[in-house]
């Protein structure tokens, strides 16, 4: 039915700086996937990279999704929003600010509150992996202008 194994994906830049601190789990996973691509170098300084990924906002939100008939929370909605852009060396945006939003449902019971805390962490980690995949998809198709001399 037309499906073929995904071919090699060469990112359209030689080196990238990811504007997330070392302690960021998202940054760690993203850098690992950038490196796994082989051709692209992940630099430790913004000045030496061909493109810079700026994270303009990383927010996590927990809102009530459903209440039971006693008016108590039975489900939460977890959302993970990331807003980022990509700039070239001259500071021009090669990818305009882009927002990716993901969400997950988490069931809730008061007597399992400690367990639910760990589950929340698992769901955020799952969203983080999906976020990295979606960022990679967007980076793979950015259009680099002809370099200015």
């Amino acid at each position, binding site marked *: 039915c037309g499906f073929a194994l995904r071919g090699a994906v060469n990112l359209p830049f030689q080196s990238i700086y990811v504007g997330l601190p070392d302690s960021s789990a998202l940054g760690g996973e993203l850098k690992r996937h950038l490196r796994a691509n082989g051709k692209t170098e992940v630099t430790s300084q913004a000045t030496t990279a061909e493109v810079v990924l700026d994270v303009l906002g990383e927010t996590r939100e927990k809102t009530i999704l459903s209440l039971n*008939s006693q*008016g*108590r*929370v039975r489900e939460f909605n977890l959302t993970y929003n990331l807003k980022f852009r990509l700039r070239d060396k001259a500071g021009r945006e090669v990818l305009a600010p882009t927002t990716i939003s993901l969400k997950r*449902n988490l069931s809730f019971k008061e*007597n399992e509150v*400690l367990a639910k805390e760990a589950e929340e962490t698992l769901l955020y980690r799952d969203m983080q992996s999906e976020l990295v995949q979606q960022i990679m*998809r967007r980076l793979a198709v950015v259009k680099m202008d002809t370099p200015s001399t």
Partner: protein
Amino acid sequence: SSFAQTQTVIETANKNASSLSAATKPQATQAADKKAVDPSTLPTVIQAETMNGEPDRIVRMENNVIVTRGDTKLTAERASYLQIEDQLDASGNIELQRGADCYTGQLIRFALESGVGFVLKPSYFIARNNGQGKADRIDFASEERSTITNGTYSTCQGLDPDWYLKAETLNLDTGLDTGVAGKSVLYFKGVPIMATPGWMDFSFPLSGARHSGILPPTMGHSNKGGIEFGVPYYFNIAPNRDLTLRPKMIARRGLQMGIEGRYLGESYAGETAVEGISDKLTNTTRYAINSIHNQKLTPEAVFSWNLNRASDNDYPADFSNSTTKTAQRLLLREVGLDYYGSIWNASLRSTSYQVLQDPSAPITLPYERLPQLSFHAGQHDVVGLDWSVDALMTRFWHPTLIRGNRAVINPQVSFPIIQPAFFAVPKLSFHATQYELDNPAQGQASHYQRTIPSLSLDTGLIFERQASLLGEGMTQTLEPRLFYVNTPYRDQTALPLFDTALADFNFAQIFSENRFTGHDRIGDSNQVTAGLVSRFIEGDGTERFKFALGQRFYFNTQKVSLDGKSNPSRSDLLLAGNGQISNTLNVEAALQVSQSDRQSVRSSYGIHWQPAEKKVLNLQYQFQRDVLKQLELSGQWPISHRWYAVGKSNYSLLNRKLVEGLAGLEYRADCWALRFVAHRFATTTLNNNSGIAIQLELTGLARLGFGSNPIETLKKSINGYQPSTTN
């Protein structure tokens, strides 16, 4: 003697040779240059049909008088100007323009250079915020400051404003962007609705900026407290600090005082809200506190707290008008210290909960962690290996259940092979756990040790093809994935359950090693999870649609269980799909189907349609077998040019009961908005809260605040709601 010409330029004391050409410069350029030019050097241009006087002493003008100086322009029928005193007197159809502001009146006297003076019987217009009104007299203290005596103020256009403030004195300062009214009465549609005494100033911003002042008052009625009236007051202390006072009169209970402060610094941020009341109904003092604070001690260390407390079980139900407060019956108290190293981080924290009990459905108090020390270290890509170590030491305390200390260490190592079309991640992990119990149950030892290794292999392939979705060309992927886990069985029946429960069955869970969350149970498994994902991806990499299905297959019977039930050979089946059908339509569906009876165990369906601004409809169905079966419809819709309807109905099909219902109307005029919201929601097994709230927002007089007002209720209740605010 008299002048023959009809136009003259009066030059100020320090003569300026180029003053004439400066006078003919276009107004806009002159205004832009205003700061650079010494105002005392600006030339004054006088035009009139008839002009006479004494040179360098006085100029008398009659008929079509126009006096211009800088961006000040006066037109009148008659005027005289004393040059040495710099005093301009004018009368008859006066119109004074200062910048974009305008005053008309009968008699005016002012100094052209300083702008000091007064006007009698004026009407005025301040361009910045469309502020306008009439007065007996306006005194100009400078170009920016003026005092209005016995005047009115409104942001409505026209001679018959929908609302206006009538004040004995009104000080306007365009430099400080402030209006301050002394003794005043506020009229709406000709009816006085609020009065302030002379000793209390009423201040408002002259533009839409954040500004100290009264927030739109809220009036309402609730079944718990009767009629309520609140006038919040907002203090804009600094750009990064503010304070809101919320006095609220509740007819049956008394005066509730609330105070809310927010702050943000370079190394810290937080907000604290405290409210309290001496309740006439219960004869007790009742209160609630919520406080969050984050403090960066060094670039690596962060101190934080999150403290919440209520005086009694019913406080949120009795005083809150939103489900976000009443639906959560556990109030967290947490203090923590986090340290972020380069490849490791550690945190020390204490947590406990206050339980707001509902006698008909009691909640077991959760364990307190006093404290919990956690440590995580890890590195990616060390000679192709990823490694991590998690360690956790916790003292679990409970007044009635088994108490004890638990130490967990969980090292993991994996060898990810990642290719564009293929990945394989073999992973080995090891759990070592030790318990020391203070008060073991009969037959339970006080000391336990448990060590369990676990092996997993995660593999997947990625296929792609060019496809089309609803007529648009896209890349479609097909991503099969297999996840194998082998964890041997250890008898754990004697171990306490401090922080552990069976996890939700979802896509994140079926691709993780342990079916429990928490560390008290490590499930034995010899199982494989099969998953298949297909995505539709647009040309720019945006994911438009995603379908997924997954199922777990067990090769042996699981023995570790919380309820003694054994598993079938196959798990429930998971199905999910979500994405954007079009720019305005989002859909999502998730389904968990039991393999034994082919019935759904949990499901959720949602449609979110937002065809235009302030136009949204949401339909959501949530189902959990034996727990929840709810249909929710919510939205915001314009019903005419100025009217918007908002509504929400959350109906429990399981209990045939309305869990939450909300209906509201918003009217948006040019210079004011009116909101009316009726709300009803369940708070406990037997109780409901119901209430109505009315809010009148007068543009330019009171800025919308944050916190408990009808707008916030609507924002939280209706996904995609956009307030029809006026600023």
